[in-house]
Structures are given as structure tokens and as C-alpha cells.
């Protein structure tokens, strides 16, 4: 977007109506009475053609991973966020929190403008007055300015530091999901103050000690892709192994082949035990030789509760394959977390993984993550009156820190408190002045997610006009000038360009800066190769005293409490997104509320079951919190777990009141030596209250009941089957044994059209013989079909939100989800096959994305009285919204239960949340059925484009939203009639099956490739 944007006001007027088929396009009937206005531009912007999307490249700031994104805009407003295929972190994929950023942009609860607290009430104030007021206060603070920020990109960090050195002050960083212990462990082990990069795709043996690399750990999109490439079976039938060691299975853990359920805090012992076996053979222990001698497998077994043979065997496997081990993550951040991370570094190092699968390169651009220990100092300073002005940006310590930290009281002590939050939060609720920042989709910035990777963030639209926001960088620069301490260039944009000019010089290309800058904006990322010599690192002498023992836990409650980050909310950042609240948690499948995970045996002992309310108390919180129980076999009997990010009270309408804040149960303690906040620190008591909470969950059953819905294939059986194609299917329905004869069309019509025809049952057998008339007669017509590789699918649920974002799928709220009225077009089914928390062994959890199967023989089509459900010439199960009268017979008949009904006009959402709607998809009002359409709008768009350009559609050109978003690359879509297409090839794979097809002859177009296991599975139906 060029900086010299003209006709801003005129575009805003235009946006009020948005021309043809724009915002608010819905089924309001063929009313002829209302007049619409057509508002043209005064001067048309060069980059907007009405009806055609304009795309901008940017960087997501939903978490600190820094995925590159492509932002789709229509008529000047953002309608979709997708991954940038050219970006090394996202490579075209995007996680659910990235999609949620769209709702955060248009959140109706955003501040309307700058606010000043007068007599306890927030009053609007102009930017001019607000900045002058802040400048005065800063001058009065005489150098005691404190800036509390979340992780910011390099430019913003630099700008803030320049501001603080000019006006006098200091900065602390509080990032709820920071990996301070990992960083400190890396510094101690190798002398590099970095968070390592893990090249999972190069591993054949992945070992996680709790790191949730599919959900929130460091760079979830990138690691999920790497993991899927490593652990998904390849064409030669090779598959990487994944062993998960930890007390609780997070979603990442559910994808493991084996689970070693050690007690909380036992990771260091296991890692050192394994390392001692390996170092005993190759002598790579370096300065840790003595420590490893102390942690023989027997000693480690005693410390961790495992068998010594298990540890030896794990060590053997870890050494004999290209392997990688990852540390406990935030959920496992206990009082010896640095030591635990260091133990894993030692393990990686002795096995020879460092330099290949564990990469450590100095990242010169971004500042080291500041640990909680520094926040502790800041809290003391605030409490003692040492801070004159405190400013909070991009973080919410009042909710994210345990109350025991004293942050709230200390913060209240400060004379003048400023928040840059875009929407209300617990910290801003105490602020005297609110200067709402822009959302990242409407602001400039940058990120450096990995060494050598420099990612740009540009505004994809003018700031949403409902909210008078201003980019914080610009505010600080203006305030600095007003306070008499000006800082460099006048805008954040100028700062950004200055820093990138330096980068341009260091890159050393021939192009002049302006051309290079434009190219960088368009590509979204600049990659600078990192010198190879940096990769050679060996273990150093430790410079800190470390205790590798299991940590101490507070209190004497029966259970150890795990507080784990949310793959939907992070640490609470995206809690006010209705999509995230309604997205069923990938592990528990619960929406809109919190829960506590308890093993079924432990629950039985307590006398509670799923939904029963319990009171959980800890030494830090004697009053305790109340939560419903979720019985979960994937957690040890001596452990309970509560998700972070909930229990908001001062957030917006979607977040407030849902669940409880797990941080209230924790002490406020900085782990030594890293200074990270301990999350795994306390025991709790769990007492039933006698109440019951009706949970909003989409889970029908967690067991397949031997119905073969998500079968698996034992790896030893691959490559041996003689028949290609569908397992267990005969020669076709109504074949020689069936005795059905092909009937001519006229005879079929006399029978009412229900004469049987002989087909092989493949998706490509469309249209059926005898029905190939008119539109259905053209042999060139494609037949759209899909293939989903369950060996790659991790159950992350990004596809669900991508679909919701693309197809204007409404959210319905907790009450409606309780009634089973959730509107998801795609859902993730999760079935347990083998989950045993009592000892180390095989783990088998199956994830199945279930969407409309677009069956050739769809049960929903013959029963629609108005032919709103029918089969299109190109093989889709069509749903014509304007014909639908809402009998719901189709949903009744669907065996997959993928058809959903609008019981109310769920799509009527508060402004400007409706700005998010995709203008290419009709919005459904009350009384209309809907379901997955295979993104028919994308199919038609590509068909139109190909027709206008006079060419055929290429394989892979039509990409539905789910496929595009999937970080694991599990979904493939295309024309199955094209024998050279990927989907046709996958449909003939030996692992391919279709759900329930043998039983009910629906002949779906969605082919699933079985998950591959390292253990033999019971029978074909399993």
C-alpha cells in the first residue's frame, strides 16, 4: 500500500454500501422495494478493481512465531488471512490463531478511540489532548518511565528503546508463553543466547518431553509441517517415529506412537539417563561426563519411575536414527526447568543432533526475551513508587501473571498508567489513559522469526473506521516530541524503512533500495543466508549451578497441577474471538468454557464424572476455583491439567465469564537461573461440589465402537497387498453376483428414477450411466474429489477456522452448541484406540477430519422435497440456499452428520464483525441448511479465470480453504477424472479407504489414507 493514499474519505463512503454483492449480501428474499445506492470512487485507487480481490503480503502477529501471510482484501477491506507460500515459516499454511486475527481486527469490543479515566469512568479524549497529557506526565516523571511490552518486532523494539533513552526510562518484556528456560539452557550449554531452531523434517525419531510443537511451542505452523513430513509415511513406506515423554498428552502428544507417562518433573532424569547410555558408547559427554555417570539408566529409572530397560531402549533408538529431542515447554516449566532443558540439550548433543536437527545461530536482530525475573524487579519498583509513568503494550500482565506476583497492586500504585491495548483487558481496566493501538493488519512493522529471516508487516487496509486507533510507534514519537525529547524520524513507517535500508546494505544486492523495498513488500520476506561455520557448536563448561532433580511442588494436595498454553487462545490473547471460543478444543472437544482434565480412575475415586463441578484449591489460592471435570485417559492419575487463557473478566463479550484463570492457582516465582515464570509448581486438592455443568461439546463418542471409521494400517502390512485401490471392496455394487441389469433411461423414469445401475463405486464414476444427459453429458466436466492423509493430519483444527473464515460460517454461542446446533462445516473427530497412563507403551489416537463427503450416491439428495440438495454435473453435492425451505430431512439422512441448519439468523453479528464476511459466499439466514461446498466459490473463480484466459485448469489450481491452511499438508483436492492429478493418484493408494462406504454404499468423493502405526492393529475395521 503506498504511503500517499488519496481519497481516503471517499473510499470510506464507498465502503458503506460496497457495490455489487458486498457486505451484507444475504438471502433477504427477492424484495423489490428497497433502493440500494451505488457509490463510486471519487478518484479510484490503482490497486482496487471492484469485484476482484487485492492481496497484500504481511506477517502475522498472533503469536511470536512470525508466519508470513497473504491478506485478501475486497474493496479496501480485509476478508481473509492465509499463509504466504513464499515464507519459510508458514510456507502457505496458517494456524487457527492466525485466522482468528481477522476477528480481532473487526472486534466490536475494540476501543472507539483514546480514553481518559475520569472519576473511575472512561471518557473519550482526542489524540491531541491525550498525547499532550502523556507528554506532560512523562516530563513530570523525570526519567522514571516504565514500558511493559510483549514481544515486538525488531523495528518496534528499537523505536521503544530509542524513546525510552530519550525521555528516560526502562523496558521490561512480559510474554506469557516465553521460553526463557530454554533460552538460558542454550546459553549455558552452547554459549548462544537463542531459542534453537529444530529441523523436524530431517528427523526419523522425534522425542518430545512435553513440547507442544503442534499447538503453541515456538513456531507451531513450521514445526507441524516438519513433523508431518518426518512422521507421515512416504512413498517408500518409511515413517518417522514419535515418542512422547510426559505426564499429560497434549494434542502433540496424541500424535505420538508411544507414550512414556513419567511423573511431572522427571524429564531431566530420563534425558540424562538416555544421554549417559549414548555417551557411554561414543564418549561425547564433554564437560558433563561426571553428571552423566551419576545418571546411569538405573539411577534415572529410580528417579523417573521407569524401567532401566525402557531408558536403554529409548537411548538406542535415539542414537541409531537421525533424531531430535525437544524440551518440556511452558506446561512443563517447573522450578528446575532450565536444568531440564539443559539435560535435553545434552542428550541432543551426545547423539550428534546439534548442528543438523538442532540449529543454534545467533539472531542479531531481535533482543533476547526478558524473563519474569525482570518483571519481578519492575513490580517491586512500581510498588515502592519508583515509577512515575507506566505504559503497557501488547501484553496483559494483570491476567497473565499469577495474582501472587502482586502486579495488580503495584500497578495501581503508579501515578499515571497508560495502556495501548486495542480492546479492553484486565490491565487496561486499571489504566488512566488508553491509547488504542492499531491491529497488525492495519499497521506497519516487521519480525525476525528465525536467524536470517526478515519478515515485513504492512497495513492491508486503512484502519477500521469504527475505531479511532493510532499505531503506538507513531504515538510514542509524537509524545516524545511534545515532551521535548524528540526521537529520529517522525513515523513508525520511516523508522521501518531506515532499518531496512541498513538491511539492504548488508544484503549487498545491486538493486537500488526503492526497487528492493517494493520487492520485499511484495514477497513479504527477505532471507539472508547464515554462515555455515556458526553451526558447529559443542557443549561448554556450565557456568551456573544446576539441579537436575525433580522439582519441589507446593502444598500437599493429591494432584500435581499442569497449567498449559491454549492452542486457541495462547495465554489469553485471542480469548475474545468467538471463533476461538467456539472452536472445540482439539484435546477435549469442549467449547466456550473451561474444564479440568482428570484421569477416569482418579475421577471415579473422587466420585465425579464428566461435567461434574469440582473445586480446585492450591496454597496460592485457598478459595480455589470451580470447574467442570473432563475425564481424560491421556493424563496420569496423579496429575490434573487446566488450560490457560480463560477466566477473562475485563475483556469483551465473547471472552468474559468463560472458564477460570488458571494462573490464579500458581505461585509467582521466577525459575532460577532463567528467571522464567514457573507454571508447573504446585499441587492441588480437588473436591466435588455437587453441582453439574452441561458442557458445550461436539464430541459424540471417543470410541469408534469397532465401526472402522478411522482405521489404521500397520506399517509392516504396507507394500504387501496385492490389490490396489479400496480395501475390502468387491468388484462393484450390483456386479455379477448382484444380478442388476443396466436399465435404459425411459424405464428408469417409469420406476421414478430409482433403478439400480452397475458402477464400481469410485468417485470418478460420475455421472451415473443413464443420467448423463444435458449438463451431465460432457465428458470434459471435472469430478471434484479430495484425499486426506490421516498419517499427516495432527488434529490441530486450523482447517475448521479456515473454512469458517472463508465461507461465512457463523458462530452460534454456547447454548446452541449444547443443543448440538454448532455450524461447523468440517469437524475433527478424535478416537482413542490405545491410551494407557499407567506405563510406557503404545499410544494410538486417531484424528479424522469429517466434512461433506460429496457422495455419488448421497442419501441427502433424494429426500429434499424442493431439490435444494442435488448432485451437480461436476460431482459436488450442491446445496442451493435459496431453494431450501428447511425441512431438515437431508441432515436427518446424512450418515456422516455433516449437514447443519440455521435455527436462527446466526450470521447477524454486531458491526464491524460483519466486515469479515467473504463477499463471494452467500450469507445464510434462518431456515437454511448448509454444509461444505468444496469451496465452490473458489472452483467457480478458477473456472471463470481459466475460461477468460482460454486455458484448461491445472491440477492443484483449485485449493479449498482447508487444504490451504493445513500446516501438515494433509489435504489434497482436485479433479479425480484427470488421471494425472494428485488426488487420482492418492485415491488408488494402498492405504486409501472411504468412511462407511462398504456398509452403506454412499460412494463418497473424500478419500482417506489410513494412519500408519508401528504396532499391529486388531483387524481391518480398526
Amino acid at each position, binding site marked *: 500500500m503506498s504511503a500517499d493514499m488519496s481519497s481516503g474519505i471517499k473510499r470510506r463512503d*464507498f465502503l458503506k454500501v460496497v457495490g455489487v454483492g458486498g457486505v451484507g449480501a444475504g438471502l433477504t428474499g*427477492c424484495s*423489490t422495494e428497497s433502493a440500494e445506492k451505488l457509490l463510486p470512487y471519487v478518484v479510484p485507487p490503482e490497486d482496487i478493481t471492484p469485484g476482484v480481490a487485492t492481496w497484500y503480503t504481511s506477517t502475522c502477529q498472533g503469536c511470536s512465531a512470525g508466519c508470513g501471510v497473504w491478506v485478501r482484501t475486497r474493496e479496501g477491506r480485509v476478508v481473509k488471512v492465509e499463509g504466504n507460500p513464499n515464507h519459510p515459516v508458514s510456507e502457505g499454511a496458517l494456524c487457527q490463531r492466525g485466522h482468528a486475527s481477522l476477528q480481532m481486527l473487526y472486534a466490536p469490543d475494540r476501543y472507539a478511540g483514546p480514553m481518559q479515566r475520569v472519576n473511575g469512568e472512561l471518557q473519550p479524549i482526542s489524540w491531541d489532548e491525550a498525547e499532550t497529557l502523556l507528554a506532560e506526565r512523562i516530563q513530570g516523571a523525570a526519567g522514571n518511565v516504565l514500558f511493559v511490552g510483549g514481544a515486538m518486532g525488531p523495528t518496534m523494539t528499537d523505536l521503544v528503546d530509542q524513546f525510552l533513552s530519550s525521555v528516560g526510562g526502562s523496558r521490561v518484556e512480559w510474554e506469557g508463553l516465553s521460553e526463557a528456560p530454554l533460552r538460558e539452557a542454550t546459553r549455558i550449554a552452547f554459549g548462544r543466547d537463542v531459542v534453537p531452531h529444530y529441523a523436524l523434517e530431517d528427523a526419523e525419531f522425534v522425542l518430545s518431553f512435553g513440547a507442544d510443537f503442534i499447538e503453541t511451542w515456538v513456531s507451531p505452523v513450521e514445526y507441524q509441517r516438519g513433523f508431518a513430513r518426518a512422521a507421515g509415511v512416504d512413498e517408500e513406506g518409511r515413517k518417522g517415529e514419535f515418542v512422547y515423554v510426559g505426564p499429560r498428552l497434549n494434542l502433540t502428544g496424541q500424535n505420538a506412537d508411544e507414550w512414556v507417562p513419567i511423573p511431572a518433573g522427571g524429564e531431566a532424569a530420563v534425558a540424562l539417563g538416555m544421554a549417559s547410555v549414548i555417551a557411554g558408547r561414543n564418549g561425547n559427554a564433554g564437560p558433563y561426563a561426571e553428571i552423566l555417570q551419576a545418571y546411569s539408566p538405573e539411577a534415572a529409572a529410580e528417579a523417573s519411575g521407569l524401567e532401566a530397560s525402557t531408558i536403554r531402549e529409548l537411548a538406542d533408538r535415539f542414537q541409531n536414527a537421525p533424531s531430535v529431542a525437544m524440551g518440556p515447554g511452558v506446561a512443563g516449566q517447573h522450578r528446575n526447568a532450565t536444568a531440564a532443558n539443559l539435560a535435553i540439550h545434552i542428550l541432543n548433543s551426545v547423539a550428534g543432533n546439534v548442528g543438523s536437527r538442532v540449529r543454534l545461530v545467533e539472531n542479531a536482530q531481535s533482543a533476547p526475551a526478558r524473563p519474569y525475573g525482570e518483571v519481578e524487579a519492575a513490580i517491586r519498583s512500581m510498588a515502592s513508587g519508583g515509577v512515575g509513568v507506566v505504559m503497557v503494550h501488547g501484553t496483559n500482565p494483570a491476567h497473565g501473571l499469577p495474582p501472587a506476583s502482586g502486579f495488580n497492586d503495584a500497578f495501581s500504585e503508579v501515578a499515571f498508567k497508560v495502556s495501548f491495548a486495542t480492546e479492553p483487558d484486565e490491565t487496561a481496566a486499571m489504566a488512566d489513559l488508553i491509547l488504542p493501538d492499531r491491529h497488525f493488519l492495519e499497521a506497519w512493522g516487521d519480525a525476525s522469526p528465525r536467524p536470517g529471516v526478515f519478515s515485513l508487516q504492512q497495513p492491508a487496509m486503512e484502519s477500521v473506521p469504527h475505531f479511532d486507533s493510532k499505531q503506538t510507534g507513531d504515538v510514542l514519537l509524537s509524545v516524545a516530541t511534545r515532551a521535548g525529547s524528540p526521537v529520529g524520524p517522525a513515523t513508525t513507517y520511516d523508522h521501518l524503512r531506515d532499518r531496512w535500508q541498513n538491511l539492504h546494505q548488508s544484503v549487498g544486492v545491486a538493486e537500488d533500495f526503492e526497487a528492493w523495498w517494493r520487492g520485499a513488500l511484495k514477497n513479504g520476506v527477505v532471507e539472508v543466508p547464515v554462515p555455515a561455520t556458526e553451526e558447529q557448536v559443542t557443549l561448554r563448561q556450565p557456568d551456573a549451578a544446576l539441579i537436575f532433580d525433580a522439582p519441589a511442588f507446593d502444598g500437599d494436595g493429591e494432584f500435581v497441577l499442569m497449567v498449559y498454553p491454549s492452542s486457541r487462545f495462547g495465554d489469553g490473547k485471542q480469548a475474545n474471538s468467538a471463533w476461538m471460543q467456539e472452536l472445540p478444543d482439539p484435546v477435549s472437544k469442549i467449547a466456550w468454557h473451561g474444564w479440568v482434565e482428570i484421569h477416569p480412575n482418579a475421577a471415579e475415586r473422587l466420585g465425579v464424572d464428566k461435567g461434574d463441578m469440582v473445586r480446585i484449591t492450591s496454597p496460592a489460592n485457598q478459595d480455589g476455583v470451580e470447574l467442570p471435570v473432563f475425564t481424560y485417559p491421556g493424563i496420569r492419575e496423579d496429575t490434573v491439567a487446566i488450560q490457560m487463557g480463560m477466566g477473562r473478566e475485563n475483556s469483551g463479550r465473547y471472552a468474559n465469564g468463560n472458564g477460570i484463570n488458571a494462573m490464579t492457582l500458581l505461585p509467582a516465582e521466577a525459575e532460577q537461573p532463567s528467571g522464567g515464570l514457573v507454571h508447573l509448581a504446585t499441587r492441588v486438592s480437588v473436591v466435588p461440589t455437587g453441582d453439574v455443568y452441561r458442557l458445550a461439546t461436539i464430541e459424540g463418542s471417543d470410541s469408534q465402537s469397532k465401526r472402522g471409521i478411522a482405521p489404521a494400517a500397520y506399517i509392516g502390512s504396507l507394500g504387501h497387498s496385492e490389490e490396489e485401490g479400496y480395501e475390502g471392496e468387491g468388484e462393484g455394487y450390483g456386479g455379477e453376483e448382484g444380478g442388476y441389469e443396466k436399465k435404459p433411461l425411459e424405464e428408469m423414469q417409469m420406476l421414478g428414477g430409482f433403478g439400480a445401475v452397475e458402477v464400481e463405486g469410485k468417485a470418478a464414476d460420475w455421472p451415473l450411466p443413464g443420467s448423463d444427459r444435458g449438463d451431465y453429458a460432457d465428458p470434459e466436466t471435472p469430478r471434484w474429489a479430495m484425499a486426506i492423509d490421516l498419517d499427516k493430519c495432527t488434529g490441530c483444527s486450523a482447517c475448521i477456522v479456515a473454512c469458517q473464515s472463508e465461507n461465512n460460517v457463523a458462530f452460534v454461542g454456547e447454548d446452541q452448541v449444547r443443543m448440538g446446533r454448532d455450524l461447523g462445516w468440517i469437524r475433527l473427530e478424535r478416537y482413542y484406540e490405545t491410551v494407557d497412563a499407567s506405563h510406557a507403551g503404545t499410544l494410538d489416537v486417531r484424528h479424522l477430519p469429517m466434512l461433506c463427503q460429496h457422495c455419488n450416491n448421497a442419501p441427502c439428495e433424494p429426500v429434499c422435497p424442493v431439490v435444494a440438495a*442435488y448432485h451437480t*454435473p461436476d460431482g459436488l453435492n450442491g446445496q442451493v440456499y435459496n*431453494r431450501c425451505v428447511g425441512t431438515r430431512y437431508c441432515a436427518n439422512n446424512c450418515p456422516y452428520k455433516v449437514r447443519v441448519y440455521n435455527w436462527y439468523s446466526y450470521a447477524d453479528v454486531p458491526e464491524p464483525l460483519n466486515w469479515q464476511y467473504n463477499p463471494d459466499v*452467500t450469507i445464510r439466514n434462518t431456515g437454511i441448511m448448509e454444509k461444505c461446498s468444496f469451496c465452490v466459490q473458489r472452483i*467457480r473463480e478458477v473456472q471463470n479465470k481459466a*475460461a477468460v484466459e482460454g486455458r484448461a485448469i491445472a491440477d492443484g489450481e483449485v485449493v479449498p480453504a482447508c487444504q490451504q491452511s493445513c500446516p501438515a499438508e494433509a489435504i489434497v483436492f482436485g479433479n479425480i477424472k484427470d488421471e494425472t492429478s494428485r488426488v487420482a493418484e492418492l485415491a488408488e493408494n494402498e492405504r486409501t479407504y472411504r468412511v462407511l462406504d462398504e456398509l452403506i454404499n454412499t460412494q463418497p468423493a473424500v478419500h482417506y489414507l489410513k494412519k500408519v502405526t508401528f504396532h499391529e492393529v486388531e483387524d481391518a475395521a480398526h
Partner: protein
Amino acid sequence: MGVTRKIGIAAVVVTVLAGGSLAFVQDGQDANAAAQAAAPTGTSTGNNYGNDAGIQPIAFPHAIHAGTNRIDCAYCHYSAERSVSAGIPPVSTCMGCHAAGKVQVQSDQGQQQIEMVQEYWNDGETIPWVRIHKVADHVKFPHMRHINAGLDCTQCHGPVQEMGVLQQPDPAWGDGKMGWCISCHVEQDVSRDCTVCHY
């Protein structure tokens, strides 16, 4: 659609649909009547299917621009060839000819209208045209696909170059149904599949 109905259900369905379609036609006729009754005063809210008689903010005559001066449709409706939407000319396009000191017209009324356009431009305001051509919101009509197929604008929009005041051609779109669209698709033997336009 290759699925036919059993006789009993078909009878019920036909009755229901017939009843439904009658209701729609009734609405259309009422609206038309209402518009015509209000037409002479120029204060009608304007409906999509009848004369708009003076409801436009500027009395823009297609007959002079597209007719007498033979300006190509795509000169103003610039995105028809590459977008689903044909596009409404921005005010800057009008000013391209009608800026102060440029094209003059004979009639006083015409000159007055041009001055009104100049006023919109000088104030930086958009011109709030009343929409005449509209298909229902659940119909996705791609202009570029039809232009690319070789249709002339007048085939659907009627003899715009003869219209002083723009109106939808009659009987084309007269009843707001898709039958008129389908008849051309049948004639040209192109797809009549529902999900080509309804999604």
C-alpha cells in the same frame, strides 16, 4: 438434475412451488404499481424493476453519452471485462470531460447538471446513484465471463444508448426471476447447473 420424483410427492411439490411463485409475482406487481404511482413526483424510493423517473442525484443521460457521442460502455464501466462487477465510473471519469472549461453543452438543464458534478468533485464527495440493475443477493453474476463469451452489453441491459432515463429493459428482468437468464443459457447451450450461479 438427474433425479425425478415419485408421483405423490411431485403433486404436493408442484402445488407448493406454484403457490410460492404466485406470491412473488404478486409482490412484484404491487411494487411496480407503487413505483408508477409515485413516478411523476420524482419522490418514489425507486424500485428495481420500473421507471426511476428522476430519483437519480444527477440526471445523467445515457442517450447522449453512449448514444450520440458513442462512448464505449467499458470507458466508464471499466471492470466489466475482468471482474464479476461492471463497475460504476468514478467521479474523476466524469471530470475527465466535464471539468470547468472543458466540454460544454447546449441546454441550460444539462449545464446545470454538469455544474452539480463539478460540485461533487470539488467537495470530494461521491455521487449517490440509485441502483437500477440488480439481481438478488444469492445470485453470483460474473460480468467478465459473459463479456468473454461475446455478449454485447445491450443484450441484457437493453438499448441503453437510447435511454434518457435508465431503466431495466422490459420484459427482460421484468419479473425478477431467473427464467430470462435460463432461456438464454438454453439457447446458447451453456451450463444450467444451479451451483454455477448460486453458492
